[in-house]
């Protein structure tokens, strides 16, 4: 046995069309979708599989591996678009630079060639590096089942640690980003143990609209889910300085001590990041 999971007890369904995938999900609400496998296969090797039945989506690449601009100046990232697809896309490079930055620090090239952004969102890890960025860009998720589809803002998607509003019958088919209205000096900061192949102790993405009328600030690894710090954003838009903003931010985050860091260190780093972000925004 090479893995801590008895593979022979697992069932793997392979749909060839989107309709078939949605029917399989409806028939097996407990089935776990697998795209690039960069989370699922780690659990397999570790004997911590989230279920027995898997729906491998790889045959849907023709429909779902897209990164395409939309008519209103936004972009649609399909469920099977991987980090490399996203970070190499000319439109993303031009208009959503934080996606390029965060995709480049997610694992290494071998992970980026397999892992998908939708998978990063669906997995629900509070340490996901692309999720704060997607939140800052006001991402909307397209959820589908056999009955139809619905659109949900990413900032309303998580309800608790690895908990989401998704129904067992649904799959995420795409992430949509509206036209990017932020200033060019957008901000991304990942703090990990080493520069490559690290999981974040704290990760932050942010930006502001021209004239500092609105701010966007999202955080990973400092709460049970990735969060947008809406109150801090509002305080900053009202002209608060770093000290005042920090008083608000610390009511919005709730870092814990775990295998990667301590609550105390994370709080300290969040404060420094907030200061750096504010300095970064006022340069423009």
């Amino acid at each position: 046995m090479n893995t801590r999971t008895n593979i022979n007890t697992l069932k793997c369904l392979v749909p060839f069309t989107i309709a078939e995938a949605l029917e399989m999900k409806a028939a097996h609400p407990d089935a776990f979708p697998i795209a690039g496998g960069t989370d699922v296969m780690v659990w397999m090797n570790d004997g911590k599989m989230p279920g027995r039945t898997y729906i491998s989506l790889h045959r849907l690449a023709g429909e779902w591996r897209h990164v395409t601009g939309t008519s209103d100046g936004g972009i649609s990232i399909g469920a099977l678009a991987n980090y490399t697809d996203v970070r190499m896309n000319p439109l993303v490079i031009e208009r959503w630079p934080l996606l390029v930055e965060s995709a480049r620090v997610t694992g290494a090239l071998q992970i980026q060639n397999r892992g998908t952004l939708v998978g990063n969102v669906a997995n629900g890890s509070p340490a996901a590096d692309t999720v704060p960025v997607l939140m800052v860009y006001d991402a909307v998720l397209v959820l589908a089942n056999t009955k139809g589809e619905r659109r949900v803002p990413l900032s309303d998607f998580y309800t608790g640690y690895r908990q989401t509003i998704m129904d067992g019958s649904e799959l995420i088919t795409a992430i949509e980003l509206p036209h990017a209205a932020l200033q060019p000096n957008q901000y991304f900061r990942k703090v990990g143990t080493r520069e490559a192949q690290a999981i974040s102790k704290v990760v932050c993405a942010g930006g502001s609209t021209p004239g500092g009328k609105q701010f966007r600030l999202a955080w990973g690894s400092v709460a049970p889910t990735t969060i947008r710090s809406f109150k801090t954003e509002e305080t900053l838009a009202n002209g608060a300085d770093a000290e005042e903003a920090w008083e608000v931010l610390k009511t919005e985050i709730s870092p814990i001590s775990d295998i990667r860091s301590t609550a105390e260190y994370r709080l300290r780093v969040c404060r420094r990041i907030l200061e750096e972000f504010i300095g970064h925004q006022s340069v423009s």
Partner: protein
Amino acid sequence: MTEPIRLKLNGKEVDLHSHPMTPLLHALRNEELSPGTKYGCGEGECGACTVLLNGDAVMSCMVPLCQAEGAEVETVEGLCIDGELHPLQEAFICEGGAQCGICTPGMLMSALYFLRQPEKAPGGVREALEGNLCRCTGYTRIYQSVERAIGEAAGK
């Protein structure tokens, strides 16, 4: 039991009989098709199991076999053709890029990917190899090996 899964391994069609959810790495090793591909961590951290899947460097411990069906898989065994070492292998020998050898097959496959698609690693050799851990060399000799192979390829 299950239908065999057919893929192209180093240019040759092969049938694999492992369960469709078996990590590609273990299917290749257990079925004695690519003992050169190494098992390091099993969680996508070390890069020892790196192979090329349809031309892209991937960690084979994280690819379920069913997803490699019909794909072209390249492993370290495919580098040496008719007894002739690949320029990357020659460079690793010249520069002392291999010590204990466990990371070497993965290093070579990541380096091959970089040679073919340098635009994927705008940060250069260090970025290209950031997913491959080595506990012997301290990396300098490995970087030198890859640089040498790049230099030789450019010189030709």
